[in-house]
């Protein structure tokens, strides 16, 4: 039995499209099915705690929250990257930690949208600090000639080449490592992660 059933005759609680709710309104919701205990923990006062009673294992709640931005308000590529940004940052940081490199970490993000790239960089840096790693805000620089060459290469070749140039020009020393988060294609929502250390580039995922 689900929560909405109590109000089904009023057609007010169930977010399904129908008499009082359009399909567009439904697309603005993030819904998930929770157990009674999880729902009571997350929404105290709105969902009663099943205390003192035998918990019905079948009792679930469909809990919906409004998305902050309606679908279509932001560019789909930006929305897709920002939707899972916390997970992306956490997994990138976990991959960096798994390398075992005790270095000062720098972060470089390549994304089609520069505001999104800046936010991804912020998120990854915060996640690296949360993993207990030393992180620097410094962005290793490349000269204009290097950039001119690298921008002509596809990303799969450009990053290894950039890594070599950073080591050669002193942008990254033996005490540094760079975590790269790369959008290989404008149509991709999953971002690839690589690490540059000692002049060599390794794709982590």
């Amino acid at each position, binding site marked *: 039995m689900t929560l909405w059933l109590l109000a*089904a005759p009023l057609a007010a609680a169930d977010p399904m499209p129908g008499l009082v709710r359009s399909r567009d309104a439904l697309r603005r919701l993030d819904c998930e099915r929770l157990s009674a205990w999880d729902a009571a923990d997350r929404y105290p006062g709105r969902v009663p705690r099943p205390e003192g009673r035998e918990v019905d294992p079948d009792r679930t709640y469909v809990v919906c929250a409004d998305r902050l931005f309606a679908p279509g308000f932001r560019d789909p590529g930006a929305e897709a990257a920002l939707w*899972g940004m916390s997970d992306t940052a956490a997994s990138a940081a976990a991959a960096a930690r798994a390398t075992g490199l005790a270095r000062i970490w720098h972060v470089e993000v390549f994304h089609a949208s520069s505001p999104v790239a800046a936010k991804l960089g912020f998120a990854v840096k915060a996640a690296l600090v949360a993993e207990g790693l030393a992180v620097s805000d410094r962005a290793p620089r490349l000269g204009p000639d290097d950039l001119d060459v690298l921008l002509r290469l596809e990303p799969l070749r450009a990053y*290894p080449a950039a890594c070599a140039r950073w080591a050669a020009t002193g942008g990254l020393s033996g005490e540094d490592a760079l975590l790269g988060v790369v959008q290989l294609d404008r*149509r991709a929502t*999953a971002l690839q992660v690589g690490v540059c250390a000692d002049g060599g580039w390794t794709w982590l995922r």
Partner: protein
Amino acid sequence: MPRRLSCCVRIGLASIAAAGGCVVHTYQPLAGLHRPVVVDPTAPDNLSDLDLTVACVPGGKLGPSEAGVLCRQVGRLFENQGARVVTTLGGPPDEAPAGDPRPIALRLELRSRQIHEASPALGWAAMIASFSLVPALTEFTFAQDVVVRSASGALLATETLEGRITHWFGFGAWASNQLLDWTVRPEAHEVVGGGADRVLSQDLYRQLSQVVFDAKLQARVLAAERGPAR
């Protein structure tokens, strides 16, 4: 008095019988199905460098015939995006794709399961008592498990797409929604008819397209990593 009662009984029984044909289906995306998607499933060049095996594994509520239909539809989806597709019901494909192998070969596995179902008896009693003016309903939540592996079996992507389907039985729900469809709602937002199935298919195909596209890029990265020289 007896004549009036029997008339009411006849109307009631007719309403209840009609309720079986007056069904409104609604669909709600839960986890994964409404995630933002960038790739265009209608673009013909998304997967032009890909050999794709689509495996629809029967099980749970997905019987072999339904799995076959799903495989054909999903296979057509990816063929339209430029992939070379073979389908199978779980095992290795019967035949390899014709022609030279393409740079990337992936295997897409689809499994369906039902994670929740409810059909409250109180609703059915209310429908009968109200001569199908108050709707009865059946709802279930399904999960579509999506796994993409490389040719060597390496896991490239895994995703679970959940959605909720509700069937409203009763003349009242059908008539009121049909009236709104005719008068107020634009065609793309109609509730009665195949609207729910259409939206569910759109969501599923878009998510599958994005998962496979991302997995293809992941496969390219793995191939580049296996290549020479750092």
